[in-house]
């Protein structure tokens, strides 16, 4: 009898504990969204969104934790094979020149210093480099490489640490020459037209 009673007490305690844990955990769960009008599709899990959402906007709001400086970046630049295509110092090619240079009408992709926002450099390195195995750099490596390129282009100091806070604050030298694309609507005229 005593055994039975203690078993009941124990299971009650476990149940209460579980309820308490559930209540504690509850505020961490996002509120379940109302289903879509069609009932099709499902909410992404937090992990799915984290893994898929690699977009970094101009203001760097989505930059992940991590950090790196130019010295570390120089090492990554060699270790990860960046130098195989861009040259030992990022100048020699054969792939795009990453140090110095000025844009011309015949360049598709502007030199680093002409990118208007530093977080965009981070975004591109993470999603697309290294060329032969893209998307496999760690956040620290990407911060270090970004710092290396900014340093080599005389935009930051060698020991400046780039992270989610400092990178968006980097003042790109040609930022003021950038005009954001006009917000297009179906009525927006083309700038160049011959009207008859």
């Amino acid at each position, binding site marked *: 009898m005593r055994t039975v009673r203690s078993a009941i007490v124990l299971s009650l305690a476990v149940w209460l504990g579980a309820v308490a844990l559930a209540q504690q955990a509850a505020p961490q769960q996002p509120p379940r*969204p*109302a*289903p*879509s*009008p*069609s009932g*099709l*599709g*499902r*909410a*992404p899990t937090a992990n*799915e*969104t984290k893994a*898929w*959402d690699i*977009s970094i*906007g*101009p203001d760097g709001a989505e930059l992940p934790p991590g950090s790196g400086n130019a010295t570390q970046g120089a090492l990554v630049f060699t270790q990860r094979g960046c130098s195989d*295509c861009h040259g030992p110092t990022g100048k020699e090619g*054969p*792939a*795009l020149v990453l140090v110095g240079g000025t*844009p011309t*009408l*015949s*360049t*598709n*992709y*502007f030199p680093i210093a*002409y990118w*208007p*926002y530093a977080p*965009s450099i981070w*975004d*591109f390195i993470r*999603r*697309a480099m290294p*060329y*032969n*195995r*893209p*998307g496999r750099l760690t956040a620290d490596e990407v911060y270090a490489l970004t710092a290396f390129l900014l340093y080599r282009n005389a935009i930051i100091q060698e020991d400046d640490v780039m992270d989610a806070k400092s990178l968006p604050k980097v003042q790109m030298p*040609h930022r003021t*020459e*950038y*005009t*954001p*694309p006009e*917000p*297009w*609507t*179906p009525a*927006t*005229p*083309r*700038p*160049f*037209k*011959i*009207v008859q």
Partner: protein
Amino acid sequence: MDPQKSGRRRFLTNGATLAGLVLAPSAVSLSSTSVSAAGAGAAADVDDVNSLDAVLYGRRSRFVTTVRSIEGMSHPDVMPPRPNPYRPSARTPVGDLMGIITPTSLHFTTQHFYGVPDINPAEHKLMVHGLVERPLVFTVDELKRLPFVSRIHFLECIGNRPSPNGRSAADTHGRMGCSEWTGVPLSVLLKEAGLKNEAKWIIAEGSEDGKHVKSVPLPKALDDVMVAYGQNGEPVRPDHGFPLRLIVPGFEGIYNVKWLRRIKVVDQPYVTFQEHSRFIGRDPKTQPNSFEFGPKSIITYPSGTHQLPNRGSYVITGVAWSGGGPIRKVDVSIDGGKTYKEAEISGPILSKAFTRFYLPWKWDGEEAVLQSRALDEKGQMQPTEAEYAKYWGLTRQQLYAATPSQLGHCNWILPWKVDRMGKVTNGLPPVGAVVDAHSA
């Protein structure tokens, strides 16, 4: 069917009768043999059009040999090591096209540095998230359960610049095509997710290596953008974005993100790698409108490398299109633009789609310079090369030394010259260097 009889017929027959046997299992292996033997000689070719494969998935005549042409390299500035897979871009054989639809197999393809991914549609998902009430993940099958549209639209690369150095229409205009696209309007998907008030742009991202990404203004996304799973009546092909791609009608090709995996609703353009260089250091007057294409047309017959056999009756024909809406009128000139005649339209006139035109012509055996110009519904006229260069303040040399992506849509007129022997060549005077980086 009696297997024995089938076997006897197999012994007696040649390939021409194989079509009658395809229902018999024994004929399947026979037919496969026939397919593997195809190409060995003329007899095998006859087998080929009657092979089981040809019955199951049609085949063109062996006398029709038109194919896409392979680009030297779409990005000559990017060197090895190449990613695996790697695949060159390919041009549409524009001079061989008929009507307004480009056969999928002949439709130009390009990738942004990386190869075509091999995607299992059962595992592929599309995420719609960002500034929405309900972030959602859809399977491809779920998307097919939503309301859809089928629309015919051209797709053109910004690098599709009329080149004075091109020999054929494929050389000068091969980076374009026109297909019927079937898919879910993006407005439907954004309604499913529920837009928040701060929503101003969307960014669309592919799932290939490199994850090509592009910002699209929200008013366009809600206007006529679609998430396409069908092209010309069958699933979008792998090199066109299987299983899902974005179609942004009338906009530069690069907006039409292939292997689409994610739509993020945001409050500003994201100035991605493919975008930042377009909006810096330019005079606002000449800043390329990096969105919709202007009116454009090209004569496809007779065009470069064609040979007129003798003087007499011909139809000059070509296609016209505009990112600004339907084509209102196409004019054709046989004297290099001194005089024009209004062309006949041979089929439907659809918004942001190829419109096929023709003009009957009696060739008198004298030199002729054939060219067309398109007028779209917005009243915009296709410019000449001189008019285009004047707008930019560039010489001819400078015009062709610039990358097309820095100029915006290169929609000037390209004439074809017919000499007294009936030989057709490029009518633009050649220039020394043409910068030919493919895409922007």
